[in-house]
């Protein structure tokens, strides 16, 4: 009985993600909203609808670019530039496997809740920023203002139909120069994770990996006779003296992370770790900054 119970609990919580989605939607909206201020456009000229600036005409340009109305006021010719509004696709994926449903006493929320909030908020920000966002395997890229609701509906439908997802992202049709954001705990064996990331990278996608961790996984505060149960499956480990495992565990954990981090670095991907006892907006801000950091330049170059 004791063996079956934790699994059932996690499964229940995982399936109830669909029920918790409305709350998560609100939280995601809030988090996204706090970050939306000051995130307007690309802040550089480019193909777009809205006015950006007038600049003096450089000879050699096509005459059609001259803004005659402006130029008529002065003796010089001016060119009207529009803001650059290139629309990129941000593919988002977050882990909905049973292990994500875990929340220890030290954490305010389950890992999956945090992951969902981050994913939805990121989608919102991306859409507000003029990009399109899509959930890998669930939705096409969307640019609608209610992207959060659309995502939530897709998640809920998928949740009801298929239950929890696998621990690693499915390799979807991610086109080159689109960006992928993978959120999860990535506790699968490191080679599998690396392989999954490189599958994305091989398609030319650039991206970010955000690893979510529960504080208890980081600190391993167990003492005494303890039996560890897996979040899914019947795996269990009985440790007569749990404290003796701590050093080895922490070493292993950091090695595991290091391997993933290295895989990301070699492929030009970003990697970040987020603990569920930290605030979501912090993680989102850094994620967004990293997404928007070097990327627009290369995009501009490519444009």
């Amino acid at each position, binding site marked *: 009985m004791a063996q079956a119970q934790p699994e059932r609990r996690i499964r229940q919580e995982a399936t109830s993600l669909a029920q918790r989605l409305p709350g998560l939607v609100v939280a995601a909206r809030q988090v996204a909203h706090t970050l939306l201020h000051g995130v307007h456009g690309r802040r550089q000229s480019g193909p777009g609808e809205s006015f950006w600036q007038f600049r003096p005409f450089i000879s050699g340009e096509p005459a059609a670019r001259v803004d005659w109305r402006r130029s008529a006021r002065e003796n010089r010719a001016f060119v009207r530039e529009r803001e650059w509004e290139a629309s990129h696709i941000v593919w988002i994926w977050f882990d909905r496997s049973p292990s994500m449903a875990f929340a220890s006493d030290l954490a305010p929320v389950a890992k999956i809740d945090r992951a969902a909030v981050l994913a939805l908020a990121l989608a919102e920000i991306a859409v507000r920023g003029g990009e399109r966002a899509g959930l890998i395997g669930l939705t096409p890229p969307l640019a609608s203002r209610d992207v959060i609701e659309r995502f939530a509906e897709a998640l809920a439908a998928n949740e009801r139909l298929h239950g929890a997802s696998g621990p690693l992202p499915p390799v979807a049709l991610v086109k080159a120069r689109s960006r992928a954001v993978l959120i999860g705990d990535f506790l*699968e064996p490191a080679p599998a994770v690396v392989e999954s990331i490189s599958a994305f990278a091989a398609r030319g996608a650039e991206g970010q990996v955000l690893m979510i961790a529960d504080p208890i996984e980081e600190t391993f505060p167990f003492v005494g006779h303890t039996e560890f149960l897996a979040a899914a499956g019947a795996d269990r480990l009985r440790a007569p003296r749990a404290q003796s495992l701590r050093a080895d565990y922490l070493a292993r954990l950091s090695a595991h992370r290091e391997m993933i981090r290295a895989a990301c670095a070699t492929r030009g991907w970003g990697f970040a770790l987020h603990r569920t006892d930290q605030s979501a907006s912090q993680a989102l801000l850094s994620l967004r900054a990293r997404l928007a950091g070097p990327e627009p330049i290369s995009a501009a170059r490519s444009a």
Partner: protein
Amino acid sequence: MLGLPLVFAAPAALAALALLAALYLFLRVTPPRPREVVFPPLRLLIGLDRKDTTPAHTPWPLLLLRILVAGLVVLAMAGPVWNALPSANDRALLLILDDGWAAAPAWQRRVAFAQAALDGAARSGRLVALAPASHGGLELSALDGRRAEDALRALAPVPYAPSHMATLPPIARFLAANARADVVWIADGVELGDTNAFARALGEAVEGHSLNVVLDRAPPLALSGADNLSGALVAHLVRAGLAARKIGLVRALDAQGRLIGDAPFDFAAASAIDAKFELPVELRNQINRLVIVDEPSAGATWLTDERSRRRRVALLSGASADVAQPLLSPAYYLKRALAPFAEIREAPPADGDPIETLLAEKPSVMALADMSVPPGAAHDALANFVESGGVLLRFAGTRLAAGEDDLTPVALRRGGRTLGGALSWETPKHIAAFDKDSLFFGLAAPDEVTVTRQVLAEPEPGLGDKTWARLADGTPLVTAAPRGKGLIVLFHVTADTTWSNLPLSGLFVDMLRRVVARAGPAPAETSGAGAIDKQTIRAPYRTLDGFGALGAPPADATPITGDFSGPAGAAHPPGFYGPPEALQAVNTLGPGAALAPADYAGLTIAAGGLDVAAPLDLTPWLLLAALVGFLVDGFVSLWLGRAPRFARPAATALLLVGALIGATLHMPAARAADTTISAQDADAARETHLAYVASGDATVDETTRLGLESLSRVLGERTSAQIAEPIAVDPAHDELSFYPLIYWPIVAGRPQPPALAVARIAAFMKDGGTVVFDTRDALNQTPGGDSTPEGLWLRKLLAGVDVPELEPVPRDHVVTKTFYLIDRFVGRTEDGQTWIEALPPPDPNDRTPRPARAGDSVSPIVVTSNDLAAAWAADAEGRPLYPLVPGGPRQREMALRGGVNLVMYTLTGNYKADQVHAKDLLERLSH
């Protein structure tokens, strides 16, 4: 075992204690339950090198606890018995049980002790014989334990002291037949029924056997008599030995067992003491028996009969021809004055000499009204009566004044004195205040008592001492003088009103009361008197049992003759004998008997006496302790393991269920009485509610509820009555007494309520409640036509109820005036008639204006057909729910006013019918 009074029924089970060591080892190597945690990165842990694999040990307190629990279980299985009587032999057991009245106070403990002894014998399969003292020479038979218990349960103490010697031969034969028997004598410790002789004889008879005498720590108390003296009834208490109780209460009860009085007693160091009941003689006369409180035995009960209770007053009047005019007879006044506190005997007409006839009745007071006693046999008998202690009460009169007679306290001057007559200048004299040495001291001498004529005493030395009452001028009015053991009292006036109006006053009664109270019990019989009494056979009427309770006489009680005086015995158990109007009491102890402690010299007296604790089977307690230990262990393990949170409630529930099972198994005694009060009743008792009977028709019920709610609100707004929300009651189940008014809308289609409900409604109406039946059919009624279905339904309902006469509410009925001045009760309709209990017709001679009339109580029933509740009903915003016929806000207001009046009527009753309100009402009615 080990000096402890501990015996094991199955000592072999103790061998299992050796297993405890194995248990220790086993527990030692079994680690405590690990706590389970869910840990997603489990994969990272798997394969780690476990450096320290030593399992944690079970903590030693837990280990100790578990071994203790196991040990307790093993001990319990061995069947330990605490305080078991020594029974490890095969000797026969003979229980001699004193079962006279002296054993009654501690009877329960005696039986419990005997029971314990029998249990012990039954456990070891010994033969048992029971020898109660009251069974006399019956042969003893050895019984097995169960039959001996039955025999023991059938025993009860007898109300007399049985003779012990009669039991000796069977005991001797039993001892001869059973070599080496254990004899236990549960004795009462009182020398009654040859106890001392029996003790000596028994001591010789038990040679070669063992004998233990078991005594209660406190010997019994007893009542050995009661004397109804002047001023107090004195109960004589005795006790057997100084170890007996010293202080307590004697209680006087009347024939119905009602308490008359209590008198405390304190033996101090004496073995006999008196307790006094200082009560009025009338109360003392009511005393039927005296009991010592907390001493339930026949010996501690004293029955009193007519002899000790009443002062018998023989009454004889010299005037013989006044039978035709009894109110003028002096005997009439005397009878009326004496009747409250004395038993009066009058001479039967024409039956020898009346004085001798009356003296044969053994009176304590002989009253002669205006009669002279000429020398002769009657005179001698009377003189003898006084000499031997009787009181002769005489009243003056013309005959006494004329006659020669020495049975007077003072010498009388021949010829009387007339005051205030035609030939006298003196006015009628008043009575002077009573002297301090007078028997009448303390009585008030009222002014209205006047004396117009009297006989005069010859002045003589010592006249003042003999005078108990005198006139204002000092003339003796009542004189008294002792003669022999008795007393002669003379009233110098007649016992009728010809000479004075003293016999008409209350003082006369008080004076006679004191005189009679002064008289002792009837003087000893003179020869020749009472011969008839002696020979009368008196059958037992009610007898005492050993505990001193009166009950039907046993079959073997035989009648007594009138002169029976000996103490009670098996043939004549204590109790009342004779016809109910002339009962004779037979008491356990003779008057003046004493109790002496029995002498058990030479016999072994068991230490501790009856107080040896009964054997206690420890098995359930040990198991209980084991269970508790088990539960503690469970909780501690849970706490140590700190299982995941979800597992805890289940485990806790399991443990609690275990605890409950254990508690019910082992503690069945602690059960609180099931006196729950329903929430509705508790609520109804706190506030006033209007109630309605749910008809079962949802629409009608909801309408009724809303109507009453609206009415309650209106009452709260307009009157000082604070009515809480209405309550639907089911008369068959709910307590109705909380509600002043029950509204019952009649729905014809519904089944009739059960008979029980009707009976309870009837009781509610009888107890002052009011039921308003609303047939709601005013629109369907045709004058003089058939009854409507609702009317028939109501008639059927009320068939079993005592309904008073009804009338249409008269215009001056108080219900029309209780708050508003209204003339009828309108509801949704206004044509229907409202019926109420008919008032008594107004007094035709009463000319005062009475705007409101009321009966003595509130009408238990009001029948209307106007559908009141529908008119009251309003929704939460106060909007009416139903249209009215003919309609209009005025009608709705009048409906509510009618409702207010009805409720105020049930709450205040006929208050507004009081004349105090008449003026206001008239004023308001005129405008």
